[in-house]
């Protein structure tokens, strides 16, 4: 385990989470959420949870994002907060 990398990852996680909830453009927010999931997957690989990381990468970063994007296509991409 590489401490600094780990800490950096976790730091990125927080930044990504904050960005995802504060960006006004929902599409960006969703992309950031996908990125967040991806970082999370890497963190989990670090924690030796490969199965979970695999799932998170394919579901959290993959399918969830796709669903979000198409839901946004069907609704609106703008948010007021």
């Amino acid at each position, binding site marked *: *385990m590489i401490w600094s990398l780990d*800490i950096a990852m*976790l730091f990125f*996680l*927080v930044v990504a*989470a*904050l960005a*995802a*909830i504060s960006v006004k453009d*929902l599409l960006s*927010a*969703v992309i950031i*959420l996908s990125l*967040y*999931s991806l970082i*999370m997957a890497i*963190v*989990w690989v670090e*924690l*030796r*949870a*490969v*199965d*979970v990381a695999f*799932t*998170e990468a394919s*579901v*959290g970063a993959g*399918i*969830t994002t796709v*669903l*979000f994007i198409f*839901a*946004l296509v*069907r*609704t*609106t991409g703008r*948010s*007021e*907060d």
Partner: protein
Amino acid sequence: MIEDLILAKYNYWIYVTLMMIGFYAVIAKKNLVKKVIGLNIFSTAIFLFYISIGDVIGGTEPIYIHGEHVVYVNPIPHVLILTGIVVSVSITAVALALIIKIYEEFGTIEEDQILELQS
């Protein structure tokens, strides 16, 4: 002492932070998609917590390596969180379907505007 507390449990602090961020988005944001994003962050934070408690220093992935005596990390939280992720994506899907439907009916996905439109 305080370094111990911070360093030995840093994952927990991160998970607490993430959870607060997600939770805040869920209850404070008016945009429904934002709420769902918040839910996702909220639940992933909990997953991070689960995975963190299963970790063992110097352990390896819980897949058998024959012939060697190794320490494996605790596999149970992994199993639980696999379920958790599935549940999370299911709820996201249902929530998004609802949002699509709400947009069709109300023409907006801002909670306060919908409340005004309701009878």
